[in-house]
């Protein structure tokens, strides 16, 4: 673990945080519409996990995927343009906040039906297994998704066929307004892995280094043909479920307590304490990220709208003369 690497993780988290803070601002200004689910507070999970995965791995995520997309290396401008709905967006503006895609980076969404991404992840891994490719398919999902039948079905299928899936459960203690203990009889999510005959492990999702370590180890086991694994990453979202959430279901105090464990502050503090980051370094990093965010907004603002004539594009693949 070099200081550069640690600073890289800090930077990755900061990029997500500042990007989303700006997105929230743009939402208030009426530049972004529909649903916007922020990841603020959970950045250590995306930053740590994506640092531990390889470029050839597949990444599948939910509607709360800005963090995973940025940590995967998707250009911030394309992400912001997608939030704007511009043609230069990472999904050509068609998807918006919930549907980021980047085929070249094997970033397969951006799925907004809770649980619906899990079977797709299993299938991506099946394709790799059948083709003899040594790839991991990493699939992020929330604690709420654990209640959906597709979760158990997918764990079973992946384990039964020993497919290279890494199930990454972001347990932020709430499914919308429903606390974990109010939606799960068994709140130890790792116990579900055992019931599918799959190894599982709990990880401190507020500690980016712990996340990176755990994901690296699990990914190595999965890549080596050891079958699927599940990590339960314990984390917390600092903001509402979406922009419309009045947060009637949890106390301010609880939120404040968790904010005290802010993963960005925690890592920055550790680096400072160890003398591996100083005020100047942090300012430079903040400035660099701020500039990137500003550039992303400028890019999104300047980007053209898709012409209305394109409405019916991409429902089907256009006929090409000598296909198939």
């Amino acid at each position, binding site marked *: 673990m070099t200081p550069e690497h640690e600073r890289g993780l800090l930077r990755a988290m900061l990029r997500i945080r500042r990007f989303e803070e700006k997105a929230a601002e743009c939402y208030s200004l009426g530049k972004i519409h529909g649903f916007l689910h922020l990841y603020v507070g959970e950045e250590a999970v995306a930053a740590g996990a994506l640092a531990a995965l390889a470029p050839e791995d597949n990444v599948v995520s939910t509607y709360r995927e800005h963090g995973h997309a940025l940590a995967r290396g998707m250009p911030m401008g394309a992400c912001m343009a997608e939030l704007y709905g511009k043609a230069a967006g990472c999904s050509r*503006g068609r998807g918006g906040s919930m549907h980021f895609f980047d085929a070249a980076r094997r970033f397969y969404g951006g799925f907004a039906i809770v649980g619906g991404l899990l079977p797709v992840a299993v299938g991506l891994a099946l394709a790799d297994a059948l083709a003899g490719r040594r790839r991991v398919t990493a699939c992020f999902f929330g604690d709420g998704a654990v*209640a959906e039948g597709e979760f158990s079905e997918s764990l079973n299928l992946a384990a039964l066929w020993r497919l290279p899936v890494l199930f990454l459960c972001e347990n932020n203690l709430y499914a919308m*307004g429903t606390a974990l203990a109010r*939606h799960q009889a068994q709140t130890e999510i790792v116990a579900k892995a055992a019931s599918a005959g799959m190894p599982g492990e709990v990880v401190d999702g507020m500690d980016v280094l712990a996340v990176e370590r755990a994901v690296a180890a699990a990914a190595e086991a999965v890549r080596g043909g050891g079958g699927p694994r599940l990590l339960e990453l314990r984390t917390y979202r600092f903001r509402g479920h979406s922009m419309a959430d*009045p947060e009637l279901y949890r106390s301010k105090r609880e939120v404040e307590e968790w904010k005290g464990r802010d993963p960005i502050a925690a890592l920055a503090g550790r680096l400072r304490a160890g003398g591996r980051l100083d005020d100047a370094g942090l300012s430079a990093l903040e400035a660099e990220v701020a500039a990137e965010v500003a550039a992303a907004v400028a890019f999104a603002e300047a980007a053209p709208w898709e012409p209305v004539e394109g*409405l019916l594009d991409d429902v089907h693949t256009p006929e090409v003369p000598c296909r198939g």
Partner: protein
Amino acid sequence: MPRMTYREAMRAALRAALASDPRVFLMGEDVGPYGGAFAVSRGLFEEFGPARVRDTPLAESTFVGAGIGAALGGMRPIVEVMTVNFSLLALDQIVNNAATLRHMSGGQLSVPLVIRMATGAGRQVAAQHSHSLEGWFAHVPGLTVVAPATVDDARHVLAAALREPDPVVIFEHAALYPLEGEVDETATVALRGAAVRRRGKDVTVITYGGSLGKCLAAAERCAGEGIDVEVIDLRALRPLDGATILASVARTRRALVVDEGWRSGSLAAEVSARIMEGAFYELDAPVARLCSAEVPIPYPKHLEDAALPSVDAIVHALRGLGGRRG
């Protein structure tokens, strides 16, 4: 008569149902402390407690199926499926159980279950959150399907649904929740039957749910152009009120069906076919349909607007029907 929003009307209906019948309870995702994804049930958890306003895990098939079981067990469950988009996970329970149990048991069992769900597009929530699948439900024998399009209907349809011994699905177009209107608190409305929302003699527009307002606005614009438009709100999508439709078309001799569902295989097709079968010889022109474009609904506003029926497009279609008479 008091004014309130569609959301408040639905909430008042829920409150009245919970207050008047101990067998009634509400369950669904985040209907409790969160107050419902559309804030419809806000305050009811505090008022009626966790036994009667029940947050469920994310498990659409199971909590809908549990509603069926509870109905079999003598309760009057109201199950909220947050939106029709998620109801795809519960269709087996609705089609294979709720709709069949009475018949399959030779009339021994009843499933007095009410399922409520938000539907429709127009809020820039993209392809997976913008379905209008009312027509699918309207295809299934054993179900009664309604789509309150006015605040007054929102206030009264639930009580009517709870009087039924068989399953009822209520579609609430999400764009209607902020709509304001008058409510006759003392009325009892029928669950079934269409309503003529505007009288006119030149052309009939048949619509439902979230498109009613657009059709009424289009009718006003057409009035300025000398086209006198009659607007029918289907209200019940199953069974369809063929008599009201046919009587109107027999007078106007022209009809347009406006439906936010995708065109092919839409509920609008059924309405058109019924008019074909019941008023063919009365028609002066073919029945026209205005539906959504056949595309997964895109996120950006200009594309979403282009995909959905709009007031402009309705006016355009009405002009095209040549409704100006004599």
